[in-house]
């Protein structure tokens, strides 16, 4: 029987393309989600830093209404 190397190359080539494409999809999506997670974490830190501290807010409430 002839060796049919063309069929062997087609099968392994197709498998390589499919598996590499899936790995690239996973890799890119993971990077996107990790980046988004970092941005969320940074925003949360910034918002918590800009919020008034409990002591400061207590002073503000003690001051009473502005005349």
């Amino acid at each position, binding site marked *: *029987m*002839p*060796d*049919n*190397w063309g*069929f*062997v190359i*087609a*099968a*392994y080539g*197709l*498998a390589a393309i*499919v*598996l590499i494409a*899936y*790995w690239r999809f*996973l890799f890119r*999506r*993971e990077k996107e*989600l*990790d980046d*988004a*997670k970092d941005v*969320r974490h940074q925003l949360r830190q910034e918002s918590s830093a800009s919020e008034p501290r409990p002591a400061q807010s207590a002073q503000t409430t003690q001051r009473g209404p502005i005349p």
Partner: protein
Amino acid sequence: MRRLLGGATLLGLAAGLVMGFVVAPRESTQGNVQRIMYLHVPSVWVAYLAFGVVLVASIVYLIRRAEAADQLAHASAEVGVLFTGLTIATGSIWGKPTWGTWWTWDARLTSVSILFVMYLGYLLLRGMIDDRERGARFAAVLGIVAAFNIPLVHFSVYWWRTLHQPPSLMKPGPGTMPGIIVAALLVNFAAFTLLYVYFVAKRARLLRLEAEAEA
């Protein structure tokens, strides 16, 4: 840990290629086209493994409602569909020079196609339902029902008269293949199992990150 797993997978796949193309001899009946077996058979093994994991994870999810079990089932089903597709495609490429046809409605080929469509439906079902908990519940039921097709696929070559040959390795009793071919096949089985674990771990992590982003 994931890098280590990725490295081990790459090494395993490289070893599998060396075993399949360099160490394993040319098969006397089919010639070199038989080397597609080192890709085709491990692919179907991973598909069986993946859908078996879907079955177990779905049962665990229905009992404990653990989100991690649902994410594992989802990831495993996706990887299983990928490898079932590869099994069908590589089988078709192997079938043309050996059987003289790309496709025939043989019991094994038909049952594998049904398996593929069922788990594709499983993934579509998950995508269609917006309520995450409801989608997970429905998918878990389908994941359990669809698993009944796995023994049907495996034993179809015994139960019906088919063009597809019976299993050479995944069967009880002594094997008929030469030791070196069995060794090459086993190395590829190990490599593909590592690849499955790597893909599922990565996909399950993505599902966890997506759930965190939505929360």
